[in-house]
């Protein structure tokens, strides 16, 4: 049993609910608070995928606009605002990256805060999840890239996600994981 890797900073679930309520009510300060919590992280994500600062800025701006506009529709049990925001940023960044960025982001970015957890994965698990997340590749594309079968990639993705979950959160908090400290 390896020690859990502390998850990066995030808002506790009850704060998340209060923040969402304020967003729904049209409180602009809530949007500012959301940006203060996650703006740097999602900008880093957008930049890692697009490799282009202006595009990354545009992606992050539009993602926050989406959250602001659609906050009233956000009803996903167990889901956090951060997961929603980062998912939107990732989708926009993958859609808007230039072809030249597509090739470079198919390679794993320089790992930072989550490096410990990723390094503990098997190589095929780590490569699969990074190619999927940062490269936006489907499992058949990942299989071709790695010279593996699609079944192997599907199993690797599942195993990687389960192991990441175990590594970044203690088992008792799997249902509603709570982030405890910075790495």
């Amino acid at each position, binding site marked *: 049993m390896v020690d859990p890797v502390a998850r*990066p900073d995030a808002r506790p679930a009850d704060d998340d609910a209060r923040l969402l309520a304020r967003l729904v009510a*049209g409180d602009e300060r809530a949007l500012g608070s959301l940006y203060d919590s996650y*703006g740097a992280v999602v900008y880093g994500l957008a930049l890692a995928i697009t490799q282009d600062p202006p595009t990354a800025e545009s992606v992050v701006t539009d993602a926050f606009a989406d959250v602001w506009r659609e906050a009233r529709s956000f009803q996903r*049990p167990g889901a956090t605002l951060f*997961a929603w925001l*980062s998912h939107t940023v990732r989708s926009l960044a993958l859609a808007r990256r230039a072809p030249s960025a597509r090739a470079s982001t198919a390679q794993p970015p320089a790992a930072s805060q989550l490096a410990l957890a990723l390094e503990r994965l098997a190589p095929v698990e780590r490569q699969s999840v990074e190619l999927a997340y940062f490269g936006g590749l*489907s499992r058949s594309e990942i299989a071709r890239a790695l010279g593996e079968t699609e079944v192997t990639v599907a199993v690797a993705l599942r195993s990687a996600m389960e192991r990441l979950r175990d590594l970044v959160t203690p088992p008792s908090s799997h249902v509603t994981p709570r982030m405890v400290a910075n790495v």
Partner: protein
Amino acid sequence: MSDLRALAAAYALDAVDASERAALDALHAQDAEFRREVEAFREVGALMAYAAPTVAAPSALRDRILGEARSVRSITSAPTARATPAARSRWVTVAPWLAAAACAAFAVFAYNGMQQARDAMVALSGELTQVRTELQEKDRTITAFMGPEVHVVSLAEGSNKPTARVFWNHTRNVFIVTAFNIPRAPDGKTYQLWAISKALKAPVSMGTFNTDEEGRATIIVPVGTDVNAIDVVELCAMTLEPAGGSPGPTETPRLVGSWRHTD
């Protein structure tokens, strides 16, 4: 079905192939257990954002985001802590009477204590200011629906009744999207509107939106430069896309309509 379940992690990472997406979407829509598993994987997947190199966001980005938010504010903002929409509506109607009542109350309170009355007036003044602000916002919205430079499209599925309308106010350079009886987009999905022109090879994104739990939405979306660059837009279509939208439609449009002038 069991094979599809094994793809929960790939589905959560949007790493499934187009050929299997429809079946997984259906499973996700029908199976609560699969939804929970996908949601849990999405939460873990979201942490991958922290694996990206740490960089400082541009200092002006925060202001840009807040400025953008002001231009896309939902018209049908949810109830505030002060009043529900219905109550607010009544409040608008009775506000002058309450103000008058407040004046009367002032006289009574003057007898018992000027300070209490002043507090009451300050509170009422604040409420009235908020009501005025909301009315002004609604006036701007109503204005956006009308005028000589407004086109509209009614979006429907085949020959069915329309379930969405989009107003294009060229003067204000905004779309006003009104939707009704459109189920809320599934987790990780959003509705996306497309401008379609014979002169273009591919549809151009007009923006994304989602409906609430009652299947309704009333949203203002700025018109993008890509759309403004089109000389003549004949059609508008709506598809369901991954959250954040897609560069091009990934499915056959669910709703389609022809643009016309509001006159």
